C-alpha cells in the first residue's frame, strides 16, 4: 500500500482530512495565546522598546544646525576636505546667507546650541553673527571676521561641517572624554576628563554594593529558610518593611542618622568613643552612598536567595555530615553550590539596579559619591538630551555586555528569581 493512500484514509468524523483539521485547531489555539499576550506585548513595546529606540536615535541624531543652515550644508557636501584654517569666500557667503535666514526664522538659538555642544562660546557668536548678517556686504569673509574674529577658527568650521549632517557620532566622542580642537578630535585635558572615570567608578561601586548585599543577605535568607514558619514570617515582614517604604523616606532617614550632627555621631560622642571635634563624616560622601544604596537594594538579594534556599532539602547536609564531612566542607561542597542560582540572580539584580541608581547618590553622595546616572540626569536638565542619550546608550551597552558574559560563564537558564 502506498503512503499517499494511508494518509488519505485518516479523516475526522465529518469527513475532513485529519491533517487539515488539526492545523486549523492549532492555529486557533495559537491565535488565542497570541491575543492573551498581546496587551503585555503592546505595553512593553510602547513603554520600553519605543522609548529606548527613541533614546538611541537621539544619541546619533540632531538636526538643530543642519535644518537651519541649508546653504552651508550644500557647500560642505560639495567641498569635502576643504582647508579648515582658511575656508574660501564661497563658504562665508553661504554662512552669511544662512545666518540671515536664522535671524528671520528665529532659529539662531537652536543652531548655536548645536554647535556650542562641541565648540563652547558659539551661542553668542551665532546670535551676534545673525543680527549683523543682513547688513553685511561682500566680500563676506572680511565682513564676518570683522564682526567677530572667532568666525575664522578652524575648530568652529570643523564643528559646523560635522553638524551639517543630521546624523553624528559627536555625542559619543564627547561622552568618551574627547574634545574638538583646531586639529580635530583629541583626548580632553586632565582637568576635563570625567565620563569614562565615572563609568569605571559606577561599576566599581555597584560591585562593592553587590558584594556587601550578598554577605548581609546570605545569613538572613538562610535563617528565613530554616526557621519555623511562625518566626520566619515575622522575619520576612522585617525584610519587606523597608521594601514597602518610600525610597525618599528611607534615604532621608539615613541622612538624619549618619550626618555629622546626626543620631549615630551624637551617640558616639555621648559614649565618649569619639570627641566632638572629630565627628565621623559618614554622609555626603562615598560611604553615605554605599550605606544607603546597600540598604535600599538588600531585599532584592534576600528574596531570590530565600526562594532558592527554601527548597534545598536539609537531608543533603545531614547526609554529608554523616559521611564524615566537617561543617565547613558541608557548607562549601554541598550547601553553597545549591544556592548558586539564587546568588547569581540576586547579584545580577542588585548590580544592574545599582548601576542605574540616581536619586540616592544625588541626595547623599556629596562631591565624590556621584555616579554616571547623576551626570545623565544633569545633561537632561541642562537640555543636552543627545549627550545624555549617548551616555545612557553606553551604559546600556555595558550592561548588555555583562549580561552576555554572565550567560557565557554561568548560563542564564540557571537564574532563579523565585
Amino acid at each position, binding site marked *: 500500500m502506498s503512503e499517499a493512500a494511508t494518509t488519505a484514509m485518516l479523516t475526522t468524523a465529518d469527513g475532513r482530512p485529519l491533517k487539515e483539521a488539526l492545523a486549523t485547531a492549532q492555529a486557533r489555539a495559537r491565535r488565542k495565546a497570541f491575543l492573551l499576550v498581546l496587551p503585555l506585548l503592546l505595553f512593553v513595546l510602547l513603554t520600553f522598546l519605543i522609548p529606548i529606540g527613541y533614546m538611541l536615535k537621539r544619541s546619533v541624531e540632531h538636526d538643530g544646525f543642519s535644518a537651519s543652515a541649508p546653504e552651508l550644508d550644500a557647500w560642505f557636501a560639495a567641498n569635502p576636505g576643504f582647508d579648515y584654517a582658511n575656508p574660501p569666500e564661497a563658504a562665508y557667503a553661504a554662512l552669511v546667507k544662512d545666518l540671515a535666514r536664522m535671524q528671520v526664522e*528665529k532659529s*539662531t538659538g537652536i543652531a548655536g546650541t548645536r554647535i556650542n555642544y562641541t565648540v563652547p562660546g558659539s551661542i553668542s557668536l551665532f546670535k551676534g553673527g545673525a543680527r549683523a548678517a543682513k547688513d553685511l556686504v561682500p566680500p563676506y569673509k572680511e565682513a564676518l571676521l570683522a564682526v567677530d574674529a572667532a568666525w575664522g577658527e578652524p575648530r568652529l568650521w570643523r564643528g559646523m561641517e560635522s553638524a551639517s549632517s543630521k546624523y553624528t557620532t559627536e555625542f559619543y566622542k564627547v561622552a568618551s572624554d574627547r574634545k574638538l580642537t583646531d586639529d580635530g578630535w583629541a583626548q580632553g585635558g586632565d582637568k576635563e576628563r570625567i565620563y569614562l572615570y565615572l563609568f569605571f567608578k559606577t561599576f566599581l561601586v555597584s560591585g562593592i554594593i553587590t558584594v556587601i548585599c550578598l554577605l548581609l543577605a546570605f545569613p538572613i535568607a538562610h535563617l528565613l529558610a530554616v526557621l519555623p514558619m511562625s518566626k520566619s514570617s515575622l522575619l520576612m515582614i522585617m525584610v519587606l518593611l523597608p521594601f514597602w517604604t518610600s525610597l525618599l523616606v528611607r534615604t532621608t532617614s539615613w541622612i538624619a542618622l549618619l550626618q555629622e550632627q546626626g543620631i549615630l555621631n551624637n551617640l558616639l560622642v555621648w559614649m565618649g568613643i569619639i570627641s566632638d571635634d572629630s565627628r565621623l563624616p559618614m554622609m555626603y560622601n562615598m560611604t553615605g552612598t554605599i550605606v544607603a544604596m546597600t540598604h535600599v537594594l538588600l531585599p532584592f538579594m534576600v528574596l531570590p536567595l530565600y526562594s532558592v534556599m527554601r527548597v534545598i532539602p536539609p537531608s543533603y547536609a545531614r547526609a554529608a555530615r554523616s559521611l564524615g564531612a566537617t561543617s565547613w566542607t558541608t557548607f562549601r561542597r554541598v550547601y553553597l553550590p545549591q544556592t548558586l542560582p539564587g546568588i547569581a540572580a540576586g547579584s545580577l539584580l542588585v548590580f544592574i539596579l545599582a548601576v542605574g541608581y540616581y536619586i540616592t547618590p544625588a541626595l547623599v553622595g556629596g562631591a565624590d559619591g556621584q555616579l554616571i546616572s547623576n551626570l545623565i540626569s544633569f545633561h537632561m536638565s541642562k537640555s543636552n538630551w543627545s549627550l545624555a542619550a549617548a551616555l545612557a546608550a553606553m551604559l546600556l551597552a555595558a550592561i548588555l555586555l555583562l549580561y552576555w558574559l554572565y550567560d557565557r560563564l554561568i548560563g542564564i537558564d540557571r537564574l532563579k528569581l523565585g
Partner: protein
Amino acid sequence: MKKLLVLSTALATMGFAAQADVTVMSWGGAYGAAQNQVHLQPWAAKAGVAGVMVDSDNPAAPIKAMVEAGNVTVDVASLEYADVIRLCDEGVLEPIDPAILAPGADGTPAMEDFIPGSVVECGVSTDVWANVYAYDTTKFAADNAPKTAADFFDLEKFPGKRGLKKGAKAVLEFALMADGVPAAEVYATLSTPEGVDRAFAKLDTIKSDVVWWEAGAQPPQLLADGEVSMTTAYNGRLFAAITAENKPFQIVWDGQIYENEMYVVPKGAPNKDQAMDFIAFATTTEGLRAQAELISYGPPRKSSLKEEILFKGSEFSMAPHSPTSNLGNALPSNFEFWVDHDAELNERFQAWLSQ
C-alpha cells in the same frame, strides 16, 4: 450605547473643568508660597478659575521637556534670567507683548517704570534675587564675625564646614570675587583659561570642607542643623528662615551675585490668554510690592520702591534684606556668558568635584 454617551459626556465635562485650572510652576518653599498667596490666588479669585501652584527644583528643565514632548500642562513658570533668554532663543517660550503690562501706580508708562533689563521678549521680571552667603551667629563671636567674601574661604580664622551650590554658575564668580577680582572684571577673567583655573584653585582651598547643596531649600536647613557654619543661599530663603523661624543667621552682603527672576509662558500653554492676564496682574506696582513684602527679593519696578517696603505690614523694614538696596560689591549675573559656557564649565566642575 446610552451608557457610553453618559460616560463620555461626563468625561468631557471633567476635561473642561481640568482645563480651566491655571497652573503656575515655581520654585516651592517660601518663594513659591509667597507667589501663590499674593499673585496666583488673588488673580484666580478675580478671574473665577482655580489656580494651581506646582513646585520644581528649577522649572526650566520640566518646561523644556514639556514643550519638546508636546504635552504642556503648565501655563506660567518662574525662570531665571539666563534660562529665559536661552529658552526664548530656542523657541520654547511665548513672546510677551509689553503692551499688556500695566502702567505704574503713579502713571509712569510700564516700560519706563521697570528697571532696565527686567522686561525681555519672553519674560517679565517679578523680582531681583541674589546669591549671598550667611553664617550661624552662634558659631562666631560678634567682634570676630565674617564680613567679606574672602572670609568665606578663610578656614583658619572661621573654622567649620561650608555650604556651596553644586554647580558652576555663581560659585565660580563668588570664588573669583573672594580671590580679589573686582566685580566689573569677573566675567572677563572667567573667559580665560587662567581665570577658570584661578577660580578652581580658590575652591580647592576649601574643597574638603564643603557640603554641596542642590535645592534652594537645603542651605537654610544645613545651617539650622549645624552641618555647616556658613553657606551660600538665595537671600530670600535665608530671610524666611530668619523672620519666620527665628534662626540665628546673618547675611553677609559682599561678593553677592544678583539676577532677575521672571514669569514666562511656555509655548503651547493650555490657557495662554489667561496666563498673559495673570502675568499682567502679578507684575503691577502693587503685585510686585505685595510679593516683596513677603520675601526679601527686590521689586523690579521703580514705582514699587517709592515707599519703604515693610515686612507683612509690620514695622520691620525690608531694605537691609533686599538685593536692590544692597548693591555694594555686587555682581549682576551675565546671562550671555552662561548660555555660552554653562555646559563647558559645568563639565569641568563635575570633573573637579570627582577628583
